[in-house]
C-alpha cells in the first residue's frame, strides 16, 4: 500500500492531514475554492486535482495507515461532490459538438480515428532516452497498476444485454482470463520491478503531473457514477482503440533502449489484446449500450473525446518537459 502523497495546496493539505490522523466523526470545513476575501491561498487546479485523486484512491487500494472508514465519510463525500462537479463541468465545457449520423458506431469510430494528438509512444519508439522512458513508466503507473479497475465499476450499472456481456468478456481478458500470471496490472507491476522501480500503487503520486492525475480522476469519476455510465464506456472504447499501435511503438522503443523483457512484454501483450478490445468496445459495448439507451449516445462521445483530449494534454506536457514539443 502507498503512503499519502505530499499536499499541493491548502485543500490537499487539510485532506492529507485528516486522513493521516485519527478517524473522527466530524471534520472542520474545507478551504473554499473562491475565498470571499479574495486572498491568494485558495486551492488551485493542482491542489484540487490531487485532492480528488486521493479521495478516489480510498475506493481502490487505500493508503498505508489510513482508516478504511474514511472512504464513505460524509464530509469527504461533500468534498468529492464539489470537486467532481468542477471536473465534470470543465470536461463538458471542453467537449466540442460532434457531427452525428444514424450510424452511432461509425460516428464513434470516426471521432477516435480523427485523433491527431501528440504521441509519447511515437517519440519513445525512435528518439526518447532511457530516463524519459522510465519517467513515463512512473507517470503511467498511476493508472496501469489499477488497469481496468475504473471500468469495472460500470458492470452492475448496465441493465443487461450485449453491452454487459461484452464488457465482462473484455474485462475477463484484462484480469488475466483466469490466470493470475496474466492479470494486466500484475504484468505492469512485474515490468516496473524488473526496471528497478516500485510496483506499489500510488508510489509515484508525488511525481505525477496534474494532467496524469486528471486523466485518472476522469476515468474514476465516469466509472463511479451510474449517471455517467455512457461516458465511462466511451472513455473505455477510446482508450482501447488508441492503445494497440502505440503499445507496439512503445515495445519497440523499450527494446531499443534495452529495458527489461518484462516491461516490453507488458506492451506487447497490449498490441494483440487491445486490437481485440477495440472492436468489442466499439461495436458491442458502446453500440450495444446506445441501442438500449439511445439517450446516452452524447455521453459516450463525451467520454471518448475526453479520453483523447486528456491524453493529448498529458503528452504535450511531457514532451514540453523533455523539450521535444
Amino acid at each position, binding site marked *: 500500500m502507498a503512503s499519502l502523497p505530499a499536499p499541493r495546496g491548502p485543500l490537499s493539505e487539510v485532506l492529507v492531514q485528516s486522513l493521516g490522523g485519527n478517524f473522527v466523526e466530524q471534520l472542520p470545513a474545507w478551504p473554499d475554492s473562491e475565498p470571499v476575501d479574495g486572498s491568494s491561498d485558495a486551492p488551485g487546479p493542482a491542489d484540487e486535482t490531487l485532492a480528488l485523486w486521493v479521495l478516489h484512491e480510498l475506493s481502490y487500494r487505500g493508503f498505508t495507515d489510513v482508516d478504511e472508514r474514511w472512504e464513505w465519510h460524509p464530509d469527504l463525500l461533500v468534498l468529492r461532490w464539489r470537486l467532481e462537479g468542477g471536473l465534470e463541468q470543465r470536461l463538458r465545457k471542453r467537449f466540442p459538438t460532434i457531427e452525428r449520423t444514424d450510424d452511432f458506431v461509425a460516428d464513434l469510430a470516426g471521432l477516435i*480515428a480523427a485523433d491527431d494528438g501528440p504521441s509519447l509512444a511515437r517519440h519513445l519508439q525512435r528518439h526518447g532516452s532511457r530516463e524519459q522512458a522510465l519517467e513515463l513508466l512512473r507517470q503511467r503507473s498511476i493508472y496501469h497498476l489499477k488497469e481496468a479497475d475504473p471500468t469495472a465499476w460500470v458492470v452492475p450499472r448496465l441493465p443487461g*444485454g*450485449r453491452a454487459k*456481456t461484452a464488457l465482462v*468478456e*473484455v474485462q*475477463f*481478458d484484462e484480469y488475466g*482470463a483466469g490466470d493470475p500470471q496474466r492479470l494486466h496490472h500484475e504484468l505492469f507491476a512485474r515490468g516496473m520491478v524488473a526496471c528497478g522501480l516500485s510496483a506499489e500503487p500510488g508510489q509515484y503520486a508525488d511525481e505525477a503531473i496534474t494532467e496524469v492525475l486528471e486523466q485518472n480522476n476522469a476515468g474514476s469519476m465516469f466509472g463511479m457514477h451510474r449517471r455517467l455510465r455512457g461516458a465511462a464506456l466511451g472513455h473505455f472504447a477510446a482508450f482501447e482503440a488508441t492503445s*494497440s*499501435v502505440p503499445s*507496439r511503438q512503445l515495445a519497440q522503443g523499450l527494446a531499443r533502449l534495452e529495458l527489461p523483457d518484462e516491461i516490453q512484454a507488458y506492451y506487447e501483450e497490449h*498490441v*494483440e*489484446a*487491445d*486490437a*481485440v478490445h*477495440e*472492436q*468489442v468496445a466499439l*461495436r458491442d459495448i458502446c453500440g*450495444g449500450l446506445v*441501442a*438500449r439507451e439511445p439517450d446516452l449516445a452524447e455521453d459516450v462521445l463525451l467520454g471518448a473525446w475526453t479520453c483523447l483530449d486528456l491524453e493529448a494534454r498529458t503528452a504535450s506536457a511531457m514532451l514540453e518537459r523533455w523539450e521535444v514539443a
Partner: protein
Amino acid sequence: MSLPDDTETETEIQTNADIETRADIVLCPDGPMLVRGQAVIEDADGTQHATTRPVSAVCRCGRTSRAPWCDGTHKLIADGARSST
C-alpha cells in the same frame, strides 16, 4: 392472456433480440475477424495457432506484424487501399 398492444411489444422484443444475439465469428468492417472462444487457426503456411483469449482478432488485411493475429496495423492503411468487407 393477450393484451391490446401485444403486437407492438412483440416486435420490440424481436428487434432487441436481433441486436443482442452474440456471433462467434464477426467480420469487422475494414478490420480483423473476431473469433470467440477456443479455436485453432491454420495460417497460409499450414502452421496452427491456438487462441488464448476469450475473443481473438485474426488479421484480414495481411499487414500485421504478429500473424495470424491483428495488431492494429489495418488502421494505418489509407482508405483506398483497405480490403473491402
